[in-house]
């Protein structure tokens, strides 16, 4: 459900930090009909052009706070709300080269009433200007 709305290109860009490109970011929505505490995000997997990027390079920016993998696992209070566009920042030297890329996002949510994980995938062709 909501897979086609997961990747939000509007926020796509390479991120410049102290003059250097530190990585890239894009917007994302949780593919679920309710919000969840960040601790319920079993996995956020980003891939570019078929290559899966390391989990520990993926940071979740929710409103004013940034969470890495470990911080997400322990965050019981802050939530990724339903329909909320958060930003995913992925550390990557030199960011993404200009031009077209296949961006993949897989979100795995640990849900109380399901005995198996809820895994949802989205793919989008994006363009870095």
């Amino acid at each position, binding site marked *: *459900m*909501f897979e*086609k*709305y997961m990747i939000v290109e509007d926020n796509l860009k390479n991120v410049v930090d102290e003059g250097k490109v530190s990585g890239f970011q894009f917007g994302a*929505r949780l593919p679920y*009909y*309710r*919000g*969840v*505490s960040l*601790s*319920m995000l*079993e996995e956020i997997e980003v891939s570019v052009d078929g290559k899966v990027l390391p989990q520990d390079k993926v940071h979740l920016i929710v409103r004013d706070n940034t969470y890495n993998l470990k911080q997400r*696992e*322990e965050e*019981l209070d802050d*939530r990724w*709300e*339903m*329909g*909320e566009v958060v930003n995913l920042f992925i550390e990557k030297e030199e960011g993404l080269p200009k031009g077209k890329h296949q961006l993949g996002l897989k979100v795995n949510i*640990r*849900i*109380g*009433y399901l005995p198996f994980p809820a895994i949802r995938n989205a793919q989008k062709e994006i363009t870095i200007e």
Partner: protein
Amino acid sequence: MNHSIKRGVSLYSYQEEFFLKKMSLEDCIAATAATGATGIEIVGEQSIPGCPNIPSDKFVVQWFEWMDKYNVTPVAHDMFLDYNKKKGHYYTDEEAVESFKKDIRFAHKLGFKIIRVIVNTTPQIMEKVIPYAEDHDIKLGIEVHAPWHINSPWMTRHWEVMEKTGTKHFGFIPDMGGFTKRLAMVQVNRLIRQGADPEIAKFVCEQHEKGVMAEYTIYEVSRMSDRRIDMAVAELSRHNTFANPISLKEHMDRIVHVHGKFYDMTEDFIEPSIPYEDVINVLKDGGYNGYICSEYEGNRHIQDIQEVDSVLQVKRHQQMLVNYGVK
């Protein structure tokens, strides 16, 4: 039997537009009121950021202003119990009860009289939380959602708690999806778009409508095809169950609320999968005087190929309820 079944809408029905921020919370309440329905149900964790934390006073004031403005009343809040919220840790009963109590306080603050209890809540947790619900005069209803039926083993364990405590604050919330006589075409068609064999899909739909036990259909399909997508169609028969609506009769006094699940309304105000008239007649005969809240769940099956119009869907569903005697 005198019945005074009331009409409401679960704002869950507008999830497509709410997700995309095409509709605000107020828009959803307004759309509900426009159908003539008077009851509001919410999935708190969908509609109100931070749920089940108590919202700001400002929000609470706004909430009741909306209730007044649109002439609607809060009816039910749908809670969840994520036992595994913390990775590698499973809630103790005490933690589960604390979580549940937060939802009770949340519901109470916003004027809800009923809480939909998610199916994975255990009977022993129910027993521990009932006194708190009684103190807040909030009725807890365990949702009887397909593939469970009201006399399933798990539901019977909850029924045993109802019998044991004698409480008036714990009962059932049947979801109309548990009366799926014919598989929903929007669901089947989505699987066909994903590659399922239309002939196999037709077979599965026929078998389901004939009431053939899903095991048999799944077995037959496994001999027709080794493709997982075809097995997924067969599995629809297992998960979208039907039970004789008269199964509700014996439990009528404990039905606190009803989820009006539906998948795709026709222009003639029919939901082809579910014999709404039969179920409503059973509720009427039994003197049910709670709400039936529209619960549209078709968006996820069509969003890939068309624009979703939840407002129209809910309007039609509400008209169907009126047509079947729910004022």
